[in-house]
């Protein structure tokens, strides 16, 4: 069993210190507090709707829910600027929402409609928005890290001040591309922020069963780049750590690795009986739900009024209803277009 407060295992070597929890009491701006809560509630409710629509057969393929991990996207992504690049995984609905992709376009993508953000070609795992520099949506674990290195290399060569933020999970740390990418980005001093969402399981394989060194921030530090870990269930701590990391990377000192320690409340995908973890472990982590703990603390410390949560829930429900309606009203790409966009310069088959 992997409990929230017993991170140590016999093979865990001590790495960089984890940043301390902050919580809602660390904020003094009610608008900021409301925005953070709104984004987390929005992601949570959007995904609950996705699960419902999956059961109804409206969404097909694989569907990986982010529920439990919302503090990361909600806290980290607002720290990025329009000129920065974001690369994410197949569990990326929350990142897409936080980056500003219209919920209707995300939902339409999951419906497979041509109004979807990838014209229905990608589905849940491949949300793209070039205009917002949201570069997917990748379903090859570790496969986006080399791309992130390349994005940052292009920015550096062109003299642009952009940072490339690359999200991936603890499972990616076992891939060769993780090691190659941290090495190369450090050698070339590239502005990449490697953001590891450590939810303790690579699909169903627990961290200590897939990592010889299960302190991932310590492992990353071996590549001689700055490396830190932060409580991924604390949206304020996530935001602060990410802002500090971005400031470091923008300073031209090279890449940085930031580990968010988090937990996935739901199954890996819609086809996961969760035989690899016990219910007690999940229940313990749910006590630390990023949405509920932040909402409760923000009210308790006087940052948010008691009615704010209900207001947010109403706003979010309206937005999601509109997104579903947009997807329902969407149209199917004509099959005649099937082979368009395989090449930018069309060629004979």
């Amino acid at each position, binding site marked *: 069993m992997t409990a929230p407060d017993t991170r140590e295992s016999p093979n865990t070597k001590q790495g960089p210190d984890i940043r301390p929890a902050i919580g809602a009491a660390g904020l003094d701006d009610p608008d900021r507090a409301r925005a953070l809560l709104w984004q987390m509630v929005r992601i949570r409710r959007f995904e609950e709707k996705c699960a419902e629509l999956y059961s109804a057969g409206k969404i097909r393929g694989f569907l990986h829910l982010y529920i439990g991990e919302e503090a990361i996207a909600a806290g980290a992504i607002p720290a990025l600027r329009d000129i920065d690049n974001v690369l994410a995984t197949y569990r990326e609905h929350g990142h897409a929402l936080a980056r500003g992709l219209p919920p209707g376009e995300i939902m339409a993508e999951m419906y497979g409609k041509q109004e979807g953000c*990838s014209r229905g070609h990608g589905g849940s795992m491949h949300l793209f928005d070039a205009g917002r520099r949201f570069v997917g949506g990748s379903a090859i674990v570790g496969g986006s890290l080399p791309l992130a290195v*390349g994005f940052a290399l292009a920015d550096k060569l062109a003299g642009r001040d952009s940072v490339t933020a690359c999200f991936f999970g603890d499972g990616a740390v076992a891939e060769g591309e993780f090691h190659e990418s941290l090495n190369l980005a450090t050698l070339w001093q590239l502005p990449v922020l490697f953001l590891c969402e450590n939810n303790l399981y690579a699909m169903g394989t627990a961290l200590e069963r897939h990592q010889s060194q299960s302190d991932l921030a310590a492992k990353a530090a071996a590549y001689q780049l700055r490396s830190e870990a932060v409580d991924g269930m604390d949206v304020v701590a996530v935001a602060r750590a990410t802002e500090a990391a971005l400031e470091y990377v923008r300073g031209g000192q090279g890449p940085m690795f930031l580990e968010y320690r988090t937990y996935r409340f739901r199954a890996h995908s819609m086809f996961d009986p969760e035989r690899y973890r016990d219910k007690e472990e999940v229940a313990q982590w749910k006590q630390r739900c990023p949405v509920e703990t932040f909402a409760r603390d923000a009210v308790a410390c006087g940052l948010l009024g008691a009615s704010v949560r209900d207001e947010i829930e109403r706003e979010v429900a309206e937005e999601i209803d509109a997104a579903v309606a947009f997807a329902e009203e969407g149209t199917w790409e004509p099959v005649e277009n099937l082979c368009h966009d395989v090449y930018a310069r069309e060629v004979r088959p």
Partner: protein
Amino acid sequence: MTTQTIAYREALRQGLREALIRDERVFLMGEDVGRYGGTYAVSHGLLEEFGEARIRDTPLSESTFTGAGIGAALNGMRPIVEIMTVNFSLLALDQIMNNAATLRHMSGGQYNVPVVIRMTTGGGRQLAAQHSHSLEGWYAHIPGLRIVAPATHEDARGMLLAALEDPDPVLIFEHALLLNAEGTVEGEPHPMELDHAAIRREGSQVSLITYGGMLHKTLAAAEQLAAEGIDAEVLDLRTLRPLDDAAIMASVAKTHRVVVIDEGWRSGSLSAEIIARINEQAFFELDGPPVRVCSQEVPVPYAKHLEDAAIPQVEDIVVAVHGLLG
């Protein structure tokens, strides 16, 4: 216009140099392309001329430097990624297949990937089974990629320039046995279009269809056949994906007999694809069954006599034509 006689490697170098001069978004990266001067001395002198920012030595991380080329292409650059040899490209296959080839369609047309990936291919140098294969036919299976195999010196420098002007990922396969071969080029390096096959020898009795390193063996075979009074046409495919069906069918319609010469293995090969297309599109033009000359279905061995036996030779092509013409 001045005519120069140069080695194929020098033609490649001229192409790279011209590309770097023409477009400041172009840079070259790969293993030992800089200080070493290129494993095969193709990039010799470029580091001194263009500097470390544009001639980038990489660690032995094929997947990541190839993926970085793809990422840089997505973000506005025109990278040239050099992979030392085709067998090593398998370490980068994830990036080539899952990213370069898919991103445009999977994103609904939002991205294109103007990356150029060069690698040596083919056997004949006694380098055994991890340095000698011809896997370009595998890559030609993949929608989203353009696969080119320059067999002439003009194409060696000019197809690179055309590839850099192309908005899609282009893989260039340079046959290692050509590197020292001398040939002629005219004037300054200029782009050589990517869409058409080229007739390298006009003929009327049989079409010999080939590409890359096999072109020269095929031309030698055609000369032997000419001495016997057999008039063979030699078609150089140049681009393996997309195939120039029109040029293939036009040649078949002219000669009514076809031999495909492909250094890849026979099973599931590019030669199989070409013959399938001929059967689909020009079946009634044929006066005899299409014939193939391919590598033997073994990992390429080290010993010279075994390697020679594994890879198509001039004599194999001549024998195949004799068999077809009776």
